[in-house]
């Protein structure tokens, strides 16, 4: 009877996960994903159902009542934390919160199946890290210095990685972690976030003529230290972070090309120099020739996935403990064995859609610094998932990184939760107005909501001459010259120009609250620092367009009427 429960619950897992991923995808195609509360409610319920099915199965199969109490305990504590989080900030990205929760639940179930103590340990770390990550949005809101501390991040990162390289413990030939009071601490996981901030801060500062050179140079220093510590997975992730952040900042496709060529060159060099790289590649190409020795890890992983098949063996019905590092680097193989490959594919899709949501958020935020950070973190998360799942399924050679939010490992879990803390921080600072006290229906129906309509209506000169990629590249190069940004960064224009423009267009802005004034002021200065616009007029118009969209309708009096006025005039 017990095995039957394992098999039935596997179907339940697949169905719940499929619906969950589907809601994620549907939300992706909404214009303003922030507004669809009912979807997020459904997602939360699905996550709870998933968690419940998992722990009921564990409870029945292991015949251990601790699982049952642990489930209840997890639910209570986690939802208390989420309640606190949402009370503190009123509007958080519930989509991200749900996805984090869902992935954590998958982790709790598979780790709990492997060993009850592992799940408890994972849960305690989750709670602590979650609590710490709740402070991040507050820090981001109240510290204006964050984007000016570029070299501080750099120093922090290099010191942390360097210290491990010099003094860290050697495990399996790699120097990855410190041991403090019996707790293992792996700085490279945290430096992932720090390096994203470092690169974002440098590339945002258009006044610094050396920003490309120094960001590149110091990123390479990070990577070299990791290579010397033999953390190849980490080195790969850092390379990808730098490459894509640079590309997003300079908008030049040649960056990717040079990156790909450089990457291939570095890979070839590593293949010649390092024996362990050579062995990894050989086992990737011919895993079945040395199953007992160097190919042991990958073949055990493939045996697990293959034996599980599409439907999976069911919880407690497989033999995942024979996979090396099953709690950490190979946790995906254990999931594939017991939950099945169908579920595993859905899990990969959940990671993908989470990464895509981060990119989408990155495209929608206005502050360049935030844009770069979100993209950098998305690249980091995506690359990590590719390295660990791709490695375990023989898509790419093994590198030995953890599966974010699922693998056991304090540093990895904490760093990932902090990362999502940063994502929430940016969300809270950028999108808060959507939910914060305004009537959703009104906002949705409002003409200001639609970008295109707005442009047509007001003839805002956003249209730029048709440009090919090459010419836009040329323009970007020019815009990077410091003298061009000099006058943009002049604080004098701004409010005055804005007022003049508004008066001209018969729009009056009532700064009815202190908050809105703050928004206007701070955003202008931030905008000028990022210095994206060469032409002053263009700048103002673009800026106004952006700003008007963001000012909730309540703040603009005459906005709605103006359209009627115009029409009246035309009629006359």
């Amino acid at each position: 009877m017990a095995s039957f429960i394992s098999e039935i619950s596997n179907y339940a897992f697949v169905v719940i996960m499929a619906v969950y991923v589907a809601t994620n995808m549907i939300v992706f195609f909404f214009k303003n994903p922030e507004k669809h509360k009912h979807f997020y409610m459904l997602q939360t319920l699905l996550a709870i159902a998933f968690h419940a099915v998992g722990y009921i199965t564990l409870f029945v199969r292991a015949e251990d009542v601790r699982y049952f109490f642990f489930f209840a305990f997890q639910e209570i504590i986690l939802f208390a934390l989420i309640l606190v989080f949402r009370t503190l900030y009123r509007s958080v990205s519930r989509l991200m919160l749900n996805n984090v929760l869902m992935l954590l639940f998958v982790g709790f179930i598979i780790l709990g199946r492997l060993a009850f103590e592992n799940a408890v340990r994972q849960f305690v770390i989750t709670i602590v890290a979650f609590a710490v990550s709740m402070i991040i949005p507050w820090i981001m809101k109240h510290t204006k210095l964050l984007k000016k501390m570029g070299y501080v991040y750099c120093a922090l990162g290099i010191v942390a990685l360097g210290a491990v390289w010099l003094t860290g413990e050697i495990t399996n030939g790699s120097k990855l972690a410190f041991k403090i009071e019996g707790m293992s601490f792996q700085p490279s996981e945290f430096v992932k976030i720090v390096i994203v901030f470092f690169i974002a801060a440098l590339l945002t500062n258009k006044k610094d003529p050396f920003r490309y050179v120094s960001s590149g140079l110091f990123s390479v220093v990070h990577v070299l230290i990791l290579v010397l510590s033999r953390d190849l997975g980490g080195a790969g992730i850092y390379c990808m972070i730098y490459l894509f952040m640079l590309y997003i900042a300079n908008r030049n496709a040649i960056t990717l090309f040079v990156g790909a060529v450089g990457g291939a060159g570095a890979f070839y060099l590593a293949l010649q120099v390092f024996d362990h790289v050579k062995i990894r590649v050989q086992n990737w190409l011919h895993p079945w020739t040395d199953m007992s020795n160097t190919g042991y890890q990958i073949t055990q992983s493939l045996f697990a996935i293959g034996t599980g098949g599409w439907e999976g063996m069911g919880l407690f019905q497989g033999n995942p403990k024979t996979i090396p590092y099953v709690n950490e680097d190979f946790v995906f193989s254990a999931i594939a064995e017991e939950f099945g490959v169908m579920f595993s594919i859905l899990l990969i899709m959940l990671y993908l859609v989470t990464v895509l949501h981060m990119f989408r958020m990155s495209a929608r935020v206005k502050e360049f610094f935030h844009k770069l950070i979100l993209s950098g973190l998305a690249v980091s998360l995506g690359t990590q998932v590719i390295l660990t799942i791709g490695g375990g399924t023989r898509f790419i050679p093994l590198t030995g990184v953890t599966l974010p939010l699922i693998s056991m490992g304090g540093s990895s879990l904490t760093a990932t939760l902090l990362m999502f803390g940063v994502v929430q921080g940016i969300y809270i600072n950028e999108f808060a107005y959507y939910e914060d006290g305004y009537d959703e229906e009104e906002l949705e129906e409002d003409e200001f909501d639609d970008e295109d309509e707005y442009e047509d209506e007001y003839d805002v000169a956003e249209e730029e001459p048709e440009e090919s990629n090459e010419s836009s590249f040329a323009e970007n190069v020019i815009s990077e010259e410091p003298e061009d940004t000099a006058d943009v960064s002049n604080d004098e224009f701004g409010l005055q120009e804005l007022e003049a423009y508004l008066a001209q267009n018969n729009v009056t802005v009532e700064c009815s609250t202190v908050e809105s004034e703050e928004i206007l002021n701070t955003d202008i200065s931030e905008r000028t620092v990022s210095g994206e616009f060469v032409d002053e007029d263009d700048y103002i118009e673009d800026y106004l367009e952006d700003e008007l969209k963001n000012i909730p309708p309540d703040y603009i009096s005459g906005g709605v009427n103006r359209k009627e006025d115009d029409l009246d005039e035309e009629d006359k």
Partner: protein
Amino acid sequence: MKKINKENLPIIITSILFTLVFAGMIVNLAWFVKNDSYDAINSIYNPRDEILAQQNVRGSIVTEQGDVLAYTEVQGDNERRVYPYSVQFAHVVGYSTNGGMGVEKVANMSLLQSNASISDKVDNDLNDSKDTGDTVVTSLNVRMQEVAFKSLGAFQGAIIVTEVETGKILAMVSKPDFDPNTIAGEWEDIINNSDSSVLLNRVTHGQYPPGSTFKIVDALEYYRQFPDEVDNYYYQCNGSLRYDERKITCYHGSSHGGVDMARSFAKSCNCSFVNIGLKLDRALMSETLKDLLFGEELPAPFQSSNRSVINISGDTDDAEMVQISIGQGTALMTPLHLNMITCAIANEGKVMTPQVISRIESTSGNVVKEYDPKVYTTMMTEEEAAYLTELMTGVVENGTGDFLTSADYTSAGKTGSAEYGTAKGDSHAWFTGFAPAEDPKVCVTIIVEGAGTGGDYAVPIAKRLFDVYFEQYMQSE
């Protein structure tokens, strides 16, 4: 038209790149599970068989005709593996205990996995009984195996019978043998007795000097190197020839007189083939040997086999070449390998992957996995195969294999008498060949250890096997 913000274009491109890589990862995983994993998990390094054995009763091994070769008898909590044909299928079906052997070993995971229908599984769950593992359907034929087994009699040796066009193995016998029903109990005795080689599957692992059967390779190589001279080849055989200190004699010292290529081959004239061997360019010959899979891993149906050993390179001296050209000296071949070469000749140069498992079925008869015949490699051209077929037909029509002339089908082959040991006259009897000669269907390779000449001891067995094959497979058509 919605205009893409220029600032966000790189982000969109980056998202697309990541989506593509993730999609690749999903496709790779799905591909592995759909196509590769079923065979990949069948490995002694996969420890999941024990867990499956707790959940399912081991499935049966049957033939395509429906004869059961192995099944598990369940009595309460006791499970007993039964092999109804006992010693006859000892090596090929093998055993599931003590590390496993044969089909039991290679299909271990298939036998332990259950693809029974959901309703069956629910029933079993409610009755608190185990699910039944899948059935392995082999290409073996009970009648052919029996004839092959009995033909070897008291001799040690090996027989393999394959279907030319599919590579399916119809019979595989190795002697001495053991009883798989009682192997677990006798295990200690067998292991401790270092003289006993009952566990050795001589078809895949027995390494024998090829003797005169190696003349197939000589003839092929001569045809390759001297295509214009083949028809004009002439040699005067005096029954013996002296090279350095060694004397090479034709069988029983009989003198064949003036021989051409066909007659040298049919009469298996040693002197003539030493003459041919010494003419061959050894560097080129080593290439041919590679084509024929000498020294290479063979696609054996049981995942492992011994390689055939032969050392020919540009440096090989004449003294060694004299030995090798008549299949003596350091040359060693497995019967499986010789069978594959013979199949290639019969199949226009292409050798099929030898396979013993035709398909896997669930207990209710649904096909879980089908093993389609596939070409393993091309050993020679169609012309070369046709030429060798011609030579081998000559062996049956007016040569050492003339015992087969009485049959009502045509056949082709090559005999061999491989000398071993030091005593003069101790030889293994070889025969490898196929029938019918013009449209080959079945291929047999026989070695009878220490029996004498191939013509006297191996060819009659071949005739019996061909007879049974045509009786079994041809009349039904």
